[in-house]
């Protein structure tokens, strides 16, 4: 292999203008692929963070009863009746403590948290807002939705008599941390109409959501909603956000509850993300094809230019395999060097994008991380593409008749 490598390097050096052009082509191709990939990954991560920032990856709820049709036989006649579901404000999950333990054992699940939620009215002085109260176990729920990062004012804690509210709700009610608000659910629960002290305000990334969110301690919400000891849903967080649907399927096998992942509840978003990924993959494919055609065309020309040398080497005892490897190595070297330079260029492009393209607030629109795995995959792919592109020219070189080649 030493002879082949020496010859490949020397041939590339001899045709340095051609080599520089094709290495430049590979460099630009790899830089574009890496930059676009990093851009889309950053954009998608940002979209998902914003979308899933205030919601669980998977939510488990009681199955909603549906109206049933029943045929009633009476005195030789048949009557069809529709059995409507009895109206009920909130439905509770039985034995939720055991279910949580079972969910925690499902592979891919990283956090599980119970929740008791329901509609309520928040009042302060003349202000009154329709809200949803969320009874949570704060340490558990903080692992589902990162509330710590959403805290705007006050402290992240929840004890009896305390609430965390959305920033917009606090503004609507004219309240600040330390003020008290009244929560009424109309359920005649034990704490209904009680006053709670605001200990913190949260920006949930969505103005409407921030206008109607009130977090309470779980046991207080249970009492407020008339659900003593019960919960209305169980929230889960998964390790891989794009594997949520599969994990949800596994979770649904554990209990006969309704289990829904963010992927099915945000199917339009998922379609948009998939379309984005498909577009990126298409761009990557076409750039790779263009780069491969570039390498192949330059190497075909190189084989024509080196025909006589190939003939001489064959006369000296070089085998067809050796001549083939000389040109395959050239493809590999062009791919490798070009992709390494392309990796550096992509890092520069990402830096310039982050520096020059800013949002209204003056901050970067979203982080673009040109990660090592991405660079590694790009370099390996480009090198493999280089070898594949060199196959046709290398076969041509190997098949040259030495006697004819020397007459070239």
């Amino acid at each position, binding site marked *: 292999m030493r002879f082949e490598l020496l010859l490949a390097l020397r041939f590339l050096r*001899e045709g340095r203008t051609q080599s520089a052009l094709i290495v430049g082509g590979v460099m630009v191709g790899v830089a574009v692929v890496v930059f676009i990939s990093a851009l889309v990954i950053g954009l998608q991560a940002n979209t998902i963070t914003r979308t899933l920032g205030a919601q669980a990856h998977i939510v488990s709820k009681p199955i909603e009863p549906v109206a049933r049709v029943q045929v009633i036989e009476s005195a030789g006649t048949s009557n069809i009746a529709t059995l409507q579901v009895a109206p009920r404000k909130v439905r509770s999950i039985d034995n939720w403590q055991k279910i949580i333990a079972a969910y925690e054992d499902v592979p891919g699940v990283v956090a599980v948290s119970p929740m008791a939620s329901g509609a309520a009215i928040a009042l302060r002085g003349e202000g009154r807002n329709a809200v949803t109260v969320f009874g949570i176990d704060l340490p558990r729920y903080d692992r589902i939705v990162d509330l710590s990062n959403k805290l705007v004012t006050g402290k992240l804690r929840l004890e009896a008599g305390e609430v965390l509210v959305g920033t917009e709700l606090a503004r609507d009610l004219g309240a600040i941390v330390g003020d008290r608000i009244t929560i009424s659910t109309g359920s005649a629960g034990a704490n209904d109409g009680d006053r709670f002290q605001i200990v913190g305000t949260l920006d949930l990334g969505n103005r409407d959501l921030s206008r109607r969110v009130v977090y309470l301690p779980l046991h207080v919400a249970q009492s407020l909603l008339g659900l003593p000891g019960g919960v209305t849903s169980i929230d889960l967080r998964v390790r891989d956000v794009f594997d949520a649907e599969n994990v949800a399927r596994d979770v649904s096998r554990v209990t006969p509850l309704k289990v829904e992942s963010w992927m099915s509840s945000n199917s339009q978003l998922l379609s948009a993300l998939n379309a984005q990924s498909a577009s990126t993959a298409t761009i990557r494919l076409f750039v790779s094809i263009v780069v491969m055609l570039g390498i192949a065309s330059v190497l075909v020309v190189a084989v024509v230019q080196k025909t006589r040398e190939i*003939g001489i080497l064959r006369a*000296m*005892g*070089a*085998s*067809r395999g050796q001549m083939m490897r000389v040109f395959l190595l050239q493809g590999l070297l062009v791919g490798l060097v070009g992709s390494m330079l392309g990796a550096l260029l992509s890092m520069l492009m990402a830096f310039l994008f982050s520096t020059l393209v800013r949002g209204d607030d003056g901050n970067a629109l979203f982080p673009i991380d040109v990660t090592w795995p991405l660079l590694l995959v790009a370099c390996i792919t480009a090198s493999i593409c280089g070898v594949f592109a060199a196959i046709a020219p290398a076969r041509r070189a190997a098949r040259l008749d030495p*006697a004819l080649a020397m007459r070239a």
Partner: protein
Amino acid sequence: MTVPSGNVLRLAGIRKSYNIGKPVEAEILHGIDLTLANGEFTALVGPSGSGKSTLLNIIGLLEAPTAGTVEIAGHPVSYRDDDNLTRLRAASLGFVFQFHHLLPAFSALENVLMPQLVNGQGSTAETRAHALALLASVGLAGAENKKPSELSGGMQQRVAIARALTMKPALVLADEPTGNLDTKTAADIFVMLRKFNQDFATSFLIVTHDVHLAATCDRQVTLADGQIVADRRRA
């Protein structure tokens, strides 16, 4: 390489035809029988178009004959097995061409080392010393780092001769090695080839148009119209 028999080359009934358009075939060689003894210094002469280069390509395992058998250094040749041809070519044959055919990207030393690199022997202290000694023996000591473009035609041909002898072949095939040189340089090159023939007992088959140089060879084989018409040994 050791030669098992006394002959370095044996050709029997060699014919070569080319398709020059269906169904017409042109036969260039019409049944050549030729044997070269080990260490023989032979000139192959004849007019242009007589088939000298074709015969040399067949002996050099670069072209297959249409019919006939070839034996190089006691080894029967099968032209169907390219790997075997490559091995035999590397082990038994050296080539010197009219236009030297050096690799322009490599120095004189690297060109001489090239057959060893091709055959996986690498560039060791021993192989380098051997190559430098060969360059010195062709009068090119000190020119080892020069590229072919920096050397005169005669010097380039000397490098090509040193390269042909690198693998210590049993037979060197030279196709008009002096055809592109002035008379004095041509005579010098011939003297050099003769010296290697005598020092290393290497057989030479030299295609030449120069009747004076051919006359200095041990044997002179004349080819005309694809047939051997004369085979004279020097008295």
